[in-house]
């Protein structure tokens, strides 16, 4: 399957040909990190500068505010996923895939090689994805009264609430303009619903539990999962789907990739919530235990509530009462809430990896994506 990969991809990874004549792939394991980095390094380098160019404006202050979060880059997880999915999908024939049906074409082309490259539209998609993410961060920071992000002063502190709100809207407007210029209404549709999902997630975050009776704990877990999907997984899932759509993947692949993104995104949020409990301020680049201070009941707390029903009132009252935060932390410790959260994340990752492996041929992009899945769980920040 991979014999036809173009020279450029082979050049990028010296050990590639070794890997693919090797059935059990063991020499690849040591190369994994290098391969991921090398595979999309050049593309990734173009994401932030591209974003900044898309945010150019004659008003210096508006430009400064909009590009503020593009300077300290963050993990670049979302653009990385878009780029890797793009590469993976291009190995599935993508733009070389016959429209009518190969068996009727009968026009033999021995020189046709599978691409392995990222289309310009997909690079642009990576930029748009990160722009949507950054816009949401700017607004989140206003809403959460944040002070720091990515190791620097947060936008709402650096240039005030009004400018931070404007900057977020501006980024979104430029992202939507760029989206329209991709001239693909399916992609526009996917990303437009992400924008709505993100804000819906914010509203869900105003509460911890749905008011209705019944099994409050189960309902809270469902609510938390839905909120996590809307706030985190939706962007990842749909941007990866959009990458597959742009790469002309068949619908079943697009769907599988969407499901992969959903699982990965939820796992990512779960680990994020676990880390918020574990770390001290220095590790994360932003204050720790932020969630409890904001009154949010995340997975570790929900697991603790499962074991200690008395935690329910603190959850319902958003940890407002005196000592509620400390009580929650105590119960989380006793119920081993953090470890349970991490285990749950692990289940989502297993599913994510399974989806990838069963739909994408074994290849550097696949290995890189699996690698990211592993790193989502093992990361410390």
């Amino acid at each position, binding site marked *: 399957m991979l014999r036809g990969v173009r020279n450029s991809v082979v050049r990028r990874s010296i050990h590639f040909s070794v890997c693919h004549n090797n059935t059990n792939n063991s020499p690849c394991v040591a190369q994994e990190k290098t391969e991921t980095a090398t595979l999309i390094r050049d593309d990734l380098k173009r994401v932030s500068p591209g974003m900044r160019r898309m945010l150019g*404006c*004659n*008003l210096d*202050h*508006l430009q400064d505010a909009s590009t503020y979060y593009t300077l300290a880059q963050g993990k670049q997880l979302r653009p990385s996923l878009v780029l890797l999915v793009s590469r993976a999908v291009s190995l599935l024939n993508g733009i070389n895939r016959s429209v009518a049906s190969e068996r009727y074409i009968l026009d033999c082309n021995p020189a046709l090689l599978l691409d392995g490259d990222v289309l310009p539209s997909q690079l642009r998609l990576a930029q748009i994805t990160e722009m949507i993410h950054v816009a949401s961060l700017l*607004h989140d920071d*206003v*809403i959460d*009264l944040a002070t720091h992000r990515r190791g620097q002063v947060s936008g*709402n502190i650096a240039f*005030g*609430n*009004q*400018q931070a*709100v*404007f900057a977020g*809207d*501006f980024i*979104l*407007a*430029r992202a*939507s*303009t760029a*989206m*329209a*210029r991709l*001239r693909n*209404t399916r992609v*526009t*549709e996917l*990303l*437009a*619903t992400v*924008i*709505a999902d*993100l*804000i*819906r997630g*914010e*509203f869900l975050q*105003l*509460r911890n539990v749905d*008011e209705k009776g019944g099994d409050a704990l189960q309902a809270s877990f469902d609510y938390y999962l839905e909120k996590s999907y809307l706030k985190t997984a939706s962007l990842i899932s749909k941007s990866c789907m959009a990458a597959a759509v742009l790469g002309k993947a068949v619908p079943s692949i697009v769907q599988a990739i969407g499901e992969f993104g959903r699982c990965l995104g939820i796992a990512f949020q779960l680990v994020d919530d676990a880390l918020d409990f574990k770390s001290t301020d220095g590790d994360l680049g932003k204050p720790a235990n932020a969630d409890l201070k904001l009154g949010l009941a995340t997975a570790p707390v929900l697991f603790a509530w499962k074991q200690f029903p008395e935690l329910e009132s603190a959850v319902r009252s958003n940890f407002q009462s005196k000592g509620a935060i400390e009580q929650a932390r105590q119960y989380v410790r006793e119920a081993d809430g953090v470890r349970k959260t991490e285990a749950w994340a692990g289940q989502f990752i297993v599913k994510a990896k399974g989806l990838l492996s069963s739909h994408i041929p074994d290849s550097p992009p696949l290995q890189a994506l699996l690698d990211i899945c592993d790193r989502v769980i093992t990361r410390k920040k």
Partner: protein
Amino acid sequence: MLTYVRPARLMPRFGRNSSTWSSVLLRAVGVVSQESKYHSDLLATLSEEMENLRSQLVQWTNSEPLLDTVIQPYTTSHARFFHPLLVLLMSRASTLDATPSKQQYQRYKQLSRITELIHAANAIHKSVQEHAKEAHSITKLKVLVGDYLLGKASVDLASLKDNSITELMASAIANLIEGNFPQTRDTMSIESERRRLRLQSAFLPAKACLCASILNRASEHISQACFEYGLHLGTAMQLRQSNPDKTEIRLDDEVNRAKKVLSVLPDVEVKQTLYEIADAIAANDG
């Protein structure tokens, strides 16, 4: 956002004596109502839809009492329902087809809602104050509500499945941001002042009118006329509202330009209404 009201109450308040303005606009709605049963519902349905959005927000915020305070910058805006009305009129003025399909009316309706959502989101977001001047609970709600409206606009735009309309409306949002972004005015050139005026008040109506003609697949000629009508009308509206400014753009000039481009449009009844609206803005007693 209010509960359902008769179209008369929806009209943008305009000047101390609004009777001329609102009667002109009522006639406008009346004209298009006679032409088609769909259009008469359009503004009423829009008001109903905005009320539905408000109900949704009430539910999501658990009946937050501050909600009505937060949406006030929109509900008291002088340009409320102005853009949807323009879309409504332009959708009739830019085509000879007197009986568009129901599906086409859905699209006009969606476009008019989109323009109102963009206007509303901007009105609310630009009212955000700094931490020292505004309770955090209010700031937070303003951001959330504005984002909610923008999210709805995004989804509605995507469902129109028209890349040029998406592009135009998205860029209109960027225009509003640039136009309302705080700037030190003393050092601004006349050119910058003019651009700022257009950004704040002209580009959204211009693009709204243009998009209506795009929905009709009107010719380039007609589309440009629609754009320019909206551009000059919007500018004129703003000049009526604001204090003497430094742009040296004159209200009667803008009104004349708006009327001038109407000659390109086909001679349908609604065209007369467009003239009347322009005249109403120019008139001294409002």
